[in-house]
C-alpha cells in the first residue's frame, strides 16, 4: 500500500480566518453605507451629479469677487 511521507498541510491559521472575517464585515458595512447614502465617487460632489467633473458656473461670483467700492478708480 502506498503511503505518502509528506506531512499533511496544517491548515489556514486562525489569525487569517479572523482577519478575513473582519475584512468581510468592514466591506459589507461600507457597501451598506454607500447604498444608504446614495452616490459614491467624484460625481457626488457635482451639483448636477453627473460625475463629469463639469460644474455649472456659480451665480454668486459678483458677491464674493466684486472689488470694493473704493477700488473702482
Amino acid at each position: 500500500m502506498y503511503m505518502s511521507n509528506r506531512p499533511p498541510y496544517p491548515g489556514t491559521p486562525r489569525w487569517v480566518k479572523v482577519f478575513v472575517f473582519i475584512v468581510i464585515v468592514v466591506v459589507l458595512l461600507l457597501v451598506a453605507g454607500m447604498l444608504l447614502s446614495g452616490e459614491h465617487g467624484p460625481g457626488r460632489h457635482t451639483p448636477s451629479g453627473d460625475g463629469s467633473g463639469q460644474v455649472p458656473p456659480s451665480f454668486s461670483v459678483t458677491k464674493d469677487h466684486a472689488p470694493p467700492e473704493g477700488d473702482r478708480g
Partner: protein
Amino acid sequence: MNMKPRLRKFALAAHITLAVGWIGAVAGYIALDVAAATSQDAQTLRAAYLAMELIAWYVIVPLAFASLLTGLVMSLGTKWGLFRHYWVLISLLLTIIATIVLLVETQTISYFAEIAADPTRSSDDLRALGSTLVHSVGGIVVLLVILVLNVYKPRGMTRYGWRKQQEERRM
C-alpha cells in the same frame, strides 16, 4: 532567487523608507483633509484643496508605487516569497487595493483642486465640495495594518508555500 546580504539590506532600507514615507505623507494629507472638511473660510479651503492635489500626485502616488515595487523585490528576492506566507500575501493584496483606491481618489482630488483654482468660484461652491476624509483615514488604517503585518510577520504558510517547503526539504 535570493539577494546577497548587502543588496538585501539596501532593498529593505529602501522599502521601509518608502512605505513609512507613504504613511507620513497620508498623515500630512489628512491634516489638510480635516481643514477641508471643517473650515468655513474660503482662503483656507482653496489652499487646502490645492495642497491636497500636490501632495496626492507628487508625494503619495509615487510613494505608493515605489513601496509596491520594493515590496515585490523584497519578497521575490528573499526566502519569504510572494505567495508562500499569509502575511506577505495579505500585505501584497492590501497594498494593491490601497493603490487602486488612491488612483481613483486622485480624480476627486483633482476635481476639488480645479474648482479651488478657479477664482470665479464662490465660498459656497468651495464649502459644498466636502472632503476625502473617509478615504484618507481608511487608507492610513490599511497602511498601518500592513505595517503591523510586516513587523510581526505572523506565522502561517499558504498551501502553495507548504508544498514548496516540502519539495525543498526532500531535495
